[in-house]
């Protein structure tokens, strides 16, 4: 919950709600980009961000994303987050 996970912003899905599709370790998940949005939302597409509980909180570069992901894998936190994303999808049903 406290550590963010890097994800790549793939597309803006709902400009009004400031939502985007992100890819986190191969898993797609909609995230809110309000905290990293400038005036042009489309500029975010292709960028890496640290994602906390469904919110992109900081833009990072690709190398930082890779290093962070590796550290999260070592800690077991990467898989935990992916499991939580999957479980949350089920909880919506």
């Amino acid at each position, binding site marked *: 919950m406290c550590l963010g996970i890097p994800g790549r912003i793939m597309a803006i899905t709902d400009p009004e709600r400031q939502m985007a599709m992100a890819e986190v370790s191969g898993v797609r998940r909609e995230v809110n980009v309000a905290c990293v949005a400038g005036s042009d939302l489309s500029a975010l597409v292709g960028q890496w961000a640290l994602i906390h509980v469904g919110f992109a909180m900081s833009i990072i570069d690709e190398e930082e994303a890779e290093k962070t992901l590796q550290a999260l894998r070592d800690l077991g936190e990467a898989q935990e987050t992916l499991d939580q994303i999957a479980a*949350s999808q089920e909880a919506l049903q």
Partner: protein
Amino acid sequence: MKFASEFRDPAAARALLSAVAAKAEAIGASRANPVRIMEICGGHTHSIFRYGLDKLIHEGVEFIHGPGCPVCVLPMARVDECVEIAERPGVIFTTFGDAMRVPGHRKSLMQAKADGADIRMVYSPLDALELARRNPDRQVVFFGLGFETTTPSTALSIQQAAREGVTNFSVFCNHITVPEPIRALLDDPDMLLDGFIGPGHVSMVIGIRPYDFIARDYGKPIVVAGFEPTDLLQSALMLLTQIAEGRAQVENQYARVVPEHGNPVSLAAIADVYERRPSFEWRGLGEIDASGLRIRARYAAFDAEEKFGIGYGAASRNHPETPGCACGQVMTGKLRPTGCPQFGTGCTPDKPLGALMVSSEGACAAYWQYAGARVAAQ
């Protein structure tokens, strides 16, 4: 410790370890008279144990594990209040999975779910909001938990619910803040800390200036750090350097993610939705002034405390903590987890007695997971 395979950059880690050792020697730190560094964030605690940094670092440097795991400091009475809301008819209670196993006086959320309450683990408050949209005839409550890293997420979700008029969505707010407990620790006359490793992702939101009082008023250095092992070693080196030079400053080792003044959008959302409570209870630490947030009156429609008449302190606070549990002393660095009489006997990750055993960020669970063999050998 398989040094070369555990560290992606073993050469950098080795160089940092010897630089730390040289500084520690220079200031005369020893096992008997160590420099005590508190890492505030539970993510740092987890990382220190995962990489065995506490054993690799010079014996004159001791890591003290701070109160920075929001699950671990959650008071039992608050868990009781969650269970009370979750057991109301028509409620869907949503929470981060981490909170499910925290013991309450009567039961944990896990037990309440097994007993039939509709409790769902979600990854994000956005999913709780989506549940509310899909179930207009139910009351969907999100258990807002965590430090400044997660606070913006509930604030932005409440703002979104307000814009859309999703009135069956509310947040049971238990957000807490990092700087205030540090002040409480520093005011403790028994406190023996020489410096702090500041939390990375919390600081990404609030910036580094909220820590100024630590250096200015208490004369202690603090270095905000990332959670990779080399980040932690480098921040330990920066702290020792400050101590050696007689400085006490706020430094930022994690500037690649942490801006000096934080994230403006997050801070604006927090300020719009939340205000400080006069005080908030921390498990093991007691009531700490201005350390918790509540939802402002203008968002009362999204405040579960208002909606269900369960304000802070509604559950009886006369229950003592579990007898024999030393969580409070462990959390203030006065006792190591292994010094607790319950450690490994009455309290294990499978059957946690205290909250420090519940989450992988809790000091006791980290000790158990990574230091079990070391401890058994002692």
